[in-house]
């Protein structure tokens, strides 16, 4: 399934400044795997060392948050758009 992945602004420097890319994937997990295979430097900013999506990385399939679908097992179909949108957090301690 041909799926478009929107790359968030802070990660575009690791994707040749591209704001999106097309991947072939049946699930969100496959799409993110294809994305990080294509642009290896993205991986550490999207995933923890044990391979989990970082908590401040929000992933949507056509505007639906995958947390409320099947997370990385959410199926994708031709023409779907996956958006990666940051949350921002911090604190003095």
């Amino acid at each position, binding site marked *: 399934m041909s799926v478009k992945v929107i790359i*968030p*602004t*802070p*990660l*575009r*420097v*690791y994707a040749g400044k591209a704001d999106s890319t097309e991947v072939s994937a049946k699930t969100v997990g496959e799409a993110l795997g294809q994305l990080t295979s294509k642009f290896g*430097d993205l991986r*550490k*900013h999207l995933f923890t060392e044990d391979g989990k999506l970082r*908590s*401040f990385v*929000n992933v949507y399939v056509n505007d639906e948050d995958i947390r409320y679908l099947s997370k990385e097992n959410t199926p994708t179909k031709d023409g779907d758009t996956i958006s990666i*949108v*940051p*949350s*921002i*957090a*911090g*604190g*003095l*301690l």
Partner: protein
Amino acid sequence: MSNAAQLKISSELADKIRSHGAETYPHECCGALLGRDTEVAHRNVFREIHALYPLVNRRDDSPRNRFSLTSQDVLDAEKAARECGLEVVGWYHSHPDHPARPSQYDRDHAWPWYSYIIVSVANRVPEEMTSWRLTDDRSEFEGEEIGLQRVAS
């Protein structure tokens, strides 16, 4: 970072960040930095802040030492930036009664490329303001020199 990075911001906007920190004290304030990058000679890039987009700290459970912004906040800031012909180039927040230095928590939750301005606010009085960028390998923040401009952007 391979290229020297500088951050330029007007004194007026820097004062607005300080004021926001003073207003929300003893809680952390936060907001978006709207601007653009310009590459100049010799592969130097400078980042200029042209506007702020103040936001509400969503950490109402622990606002004295934490801040957070939702993905919707980020999308709203990005939309506001596009409408001005700018982009979101970073975020600011305050450290109440604490130095303007990024914490481990800041680092754990940071995105690369963004500038992170931190203002220290002691007893409601804004003090030092610093700016930082996460390194590519996420191992640390690098300080970013802030150049204050006299004319408002």
